């Protein structure tokens, strides 16, 4: 939005609302297709052409053993997520002690709840703020496909319309055990990932012109 110099304020409340509406409409228009699942590693795993060094193993072990989820709890699944965090299923056994309130400190997003178009820009922003590498678990039916509210006028049919999703946990909401199972599946995925990039593929500043 451009700043009008004649005003003594930058935004007034109505302009802010209009601006928010424009962002939502833009996102809605741009995200009609779902983002494909990042499942390339599954095929590579079958072909066995993935080579993990011991440094890879150490980094992957460190990454998967202390995943820090960001708090993204719009709706009902949040209650079950609290139960996973809670005394009976105790997520801290997996090094997932705290739900980070800040996306900058997190590397896992557990999307517990229905996503609405009004909320979608915020969730996308939270996802963009998370440092790489980052993973997303779509928890519950609303996270996967919009669930029972899919045909609603304000509901995003699945988080994979705006962010790529690594693991899908069905259930409305899934039991805490199911969530832990999903997290373990993600840990398996991380264990297979190549953490150290190939040196030949990196851009070399010494060789100018060749990229």
């Amino acid at each position, binding site marked *: 939005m451009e700043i009008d110099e004649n005003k003594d304020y930058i935004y007034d409340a109505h302009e802010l609302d209009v601006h928010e509406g424009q962002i939502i409409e833009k996102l809605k228009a741009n995200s009609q297709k779902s983002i494909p699942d990042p499942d390339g590693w599954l095929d590579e795993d079958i072909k066995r052409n993935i080579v993990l060094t011991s440094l890879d193993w150490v980094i992957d072990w460190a990454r998967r053993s202390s995943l820090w989820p960001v708090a993204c709890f719009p709706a009902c699944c949040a209650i079950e997520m609290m139960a996973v965090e809670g005394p009976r299923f105790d997520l801290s056994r997996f090094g997932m002690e705290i739900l980070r309130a800040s996306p900058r400190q997190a590397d896992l997003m557990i999307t517990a709840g229905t996503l609405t178009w*009004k909320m979608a820009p915020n969730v996308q922003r939270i996802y963009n703020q998370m440092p790489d590498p980052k993973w997303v678990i779509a928890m519950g039916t609303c996270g996967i496909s919009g669930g*029972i509210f899919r045909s609603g006028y304000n509901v995003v049919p699945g988080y994979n319309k705006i962010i790529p999703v690594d693991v899908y946990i069905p259930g409305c909401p899934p039991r*805490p055990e199911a969530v832990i199972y999903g997290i373990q599946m993600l840990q398996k995925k991380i264990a297979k990932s190549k953490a150290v990039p190939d040196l030949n593929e990196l851009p070399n500043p010494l060789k100018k012109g060749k990229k």
Partner: protein
Amino acid sequence: MTTTQELTLKTEPFILNIGPMHPSTHGVFRMRATLDGEVVTDIEPVFGYLHRGIEKLAEERTYTGIIPFTDRLDYLSPMSNNLGYCLAVEKLAGVKVPERGEYIRIITAELQRLANHCVAIGAMFNDAGAYFTPFLYMFRNREKIYDLFDMLCGQRVTYNYMRIGGVSQDLPEEFLPAVAKFLPQLKKFLDEYEFFVKQNEVFVARSKGVGILSKELAINCGISGPVARASGIKHDLRRDDPYSIYDRFEFDIPTAENGDCFDRFYVRVQEMRQSVRILEQAIKQVPDGPFRANVPQVIHPPAGESYAHIESPKGELGYYIVSDGSIAPYRFHIRPTSLINLGALRNMVRGWKVADLIFIFGSIDITMGEVDR
């Protein structure tokens, strides 16, 4: 030498945006708070981040198919929502619920009240700054109630248990003994919880006299439930407009006078004790017999309108249904307890600090699923 006049700093109003994704806003609630230094001078809530359009979607579903929607309204107390909706449809269609069905409904609704207040009180401490510890104590008891509901209907959060004309399945034989075993445990726990919370200096200092809601304002805003009772309004639909079979049980309606955060906490604890009392009476009286009236799967209620309201854990939860005689409602409106209870938030937080704003907000006990629907 400085005089007080010289020390007074000129301040400028400052707008702070809290939410929508904020750990202390109980979901996706956003408020634009206008601050003067650290003092809140005004807030403007912004809703709609969980607006799923249940009222519109319900117009395309059969009457039985709407029950799953009501589970997801106030997801801290789905059983109460089910009850309210079924009462509204039964009123419309003129269905009589069998005796056993009524008792099962009362037992589940009261257990749900206990479960809801567990979270409400726990989350209130969370907002007061005691991060997660008192919450876990409360959640331990909620897990026990989860277990009971899981036994009853196979889900832990979204039960979908009640049906028009009764409940979906009969009680399992181990259910009533389990409830009987649970109630003494809960009573003991409540004593313990009150013992260490009620005189905790930090909690008392944070909550006594904070966020006062006067009786007149509460009535004017249409506030109901424990928040209203903490302000001295002795109004409880279980007694004033008895639905189902609440008129057969003995219970008190706890009220408080001051209407501050401490009272709202205390009223909830007392209400849990009364719920235990109702449950103790109810589990002894459960009769044998059918648990569900003979109602077809797809019902065609006569054209007309009905409004049924119940005392849900958060307050008056009402369903207004307009029927045109077809299999789906013509208009389906939910009286949102949480949205209306938030109506006085602006008046309550004015003049308090930002930390108190979070605490006062937490003491109202809202669920965003019900605010936005």
